[in-house]
């Protein structure tokens, strides 16, 4: 069967120059191929360079070497080809919740009334319509994160990058939103990439998981999971007999990595 790749990262490296002028290698030869309609997760030790990978895929950072294609096109020097929910919610404090949600639609030139209707319908779906006129400073961390998620979804991107989207949420909300995201991706035929520290979350939602090494990072191991695709639900995936085995495998892979000195 012929599948097209949504994101193709080939031999990408990235180094930063720190304040002392030393070169710090962060990405050490990353190659990832993510298929259309696939939902993959990236797990790895803190500070290994996961967000850096997303910044490069989104076109916000240039790789030191290597190439990236998104939807078959080389993304050198371009942006706007993916929906990117960043690690920080980055709600603009001077905009109301509704205006924050409409930001991407505004940039894309959607008319005033239309973008308002779209944004309101999403806010209603996530039970945040009562806060449409509120400023972000009055919302809890979890609510802010949901607003940031909505802001990413309203522009209806084909590819969605989620950098720890649920970290500020309570366990129950997190489970509900995992399923919600899954069904959005599946129903609308989108491709999703999720960065998470939560191994259980990665197993319950993903088709595949990339386990990253510590910095300078590379793809240490790839796991084929597919539980959520099989059950059609992240919550049901958690009760599969293979779940525990996957968890232990990935945990030890990460554990060895974090325990190693040098």
């Amino acid at each position: 069967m012929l599948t097209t790749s949504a994101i193709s990262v080939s031999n990408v490296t990235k180094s930063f120059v720190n304040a002392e002028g030393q070169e710090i290698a962060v990405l050490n030869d990353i190659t990832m191929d993510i298929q259309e309609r696939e939902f993959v997760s990236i797990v790895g030790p803190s500070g290994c360079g996961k967000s850096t990978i997303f910044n490069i895929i989104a076109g916000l950072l240039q790789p030191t070497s290597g190439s990236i294609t998104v939807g078959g096109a080389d993304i050198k020097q371009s942006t706007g080809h993916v929906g990117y929910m960043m690690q920080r919610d980055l709600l603009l404090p001077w905009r109301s919740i509704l205006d924050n949600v409409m930001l991407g639609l505004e940039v894309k030139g959607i008319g005033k009334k239309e973008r308002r209707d779209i944004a309101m319908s999403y806010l209603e779906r996530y039970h945040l319509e009562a806060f449409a006129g509120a400023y972000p400073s009055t919302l809890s961390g979890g609510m802010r994160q949901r607003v940031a998620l909505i802001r990413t979804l309203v522009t209806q991107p084909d590819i969605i990058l989620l950098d720890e989207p649920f970290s500020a949420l309570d366990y129950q909300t997190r489970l509900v939103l995992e399923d919600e995201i899954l069904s959005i991706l599946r129903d609308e035929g989108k491709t999703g990439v999720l960065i998470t520290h939560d191994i259980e979350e990665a197993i319950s939602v993903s088709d595949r998981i990339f386990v990253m090494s510590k910095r300078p990072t590379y793809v240490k191991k790839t796991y084929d999971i597919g539980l959520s695709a099989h059950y059609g639900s992240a919550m049901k995936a958690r009760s599969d007999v293979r779940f525990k085995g996957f968890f232990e495998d990935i945990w030890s892979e990460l554990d060895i990595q974090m325990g190693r000195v040098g």
Partner: protein
Amino acid sequence: MANTTTTGNTSVASAHVAAKGKSEFVRKRQAAAVKAWLMVVFWRLAIIGAVLGIWEALVRGGAINAFLLGSPSAIAKMAVSMISSGQLMEDAYATVRATVTGFGIGSAIGSLAGLLLWFSRTVSRIIDPFVVALNGVPKIALAPMIIIWFGSGIFSKIVLAAVSTFIVALLSAYQATHQIDDSQVNLMKSFGASKMQIFSKIIVPSSLPWIISAFRINIGLALVSVVGGEFISSDKGLGHMIFVEGNLFNLPAVWVGVFTLMIVAAVLYAGVSMLESRLLPWSEGKSSKSPSV
């Protein structure tokens, strides 16, 4: 209250109550705030009354020279006569008009120029030393030249106030564009935003608090420049009046001028504060501040 009926959706219900803001709790807190503020006003008036009372008593008792210092009663008498002749209003109006106009022009052009520098790092690097040098010059030193070029009427005072405020506005707006959170710019880029969209949706609004706080400095600077210009050469204005009456040793009139300047300064400052809360509705804590004059 009647509106706390359970509607099933608690977040909606609580937002509703908050919007009405009429609960017992809120009313009590508001009453307490008003009481605290009245207390502050009372003590302020008491201090003013005490100073004036002691001053008057010292003059009456002959402890200080009424000719060199004036006395509250003589000042009051002078104030009444200057108000009824219309002279005081005319002078105050001339000063306020020049101050507000010069402040408006200088702050607006300066802020805009400072913001636009965001577009070109090269241009900002080139002009940086000039701006710093100009900022170091006490603007009143430019007054003789500006009066020669623009005459001794109100126009030269407007120009003086505009020049003084322009530099401060430019510098603060320019520095504000350097305080931008890069991640917010990245967020815009991730949506595919153009440089112009980033400017209008991120750079301008996030610089606004810095720009407005420069307004607070600038309204005072504008007043100082106008009054200074009036000292040097003019046909009306509070500075002109104080200068002329001072040369005639008419101390009560000088005091009337000084007190009027204080009131003018306070009113202008309050106006800028109002502008601030109007332009920055999202910044919390501003509205709960006691109305300070």
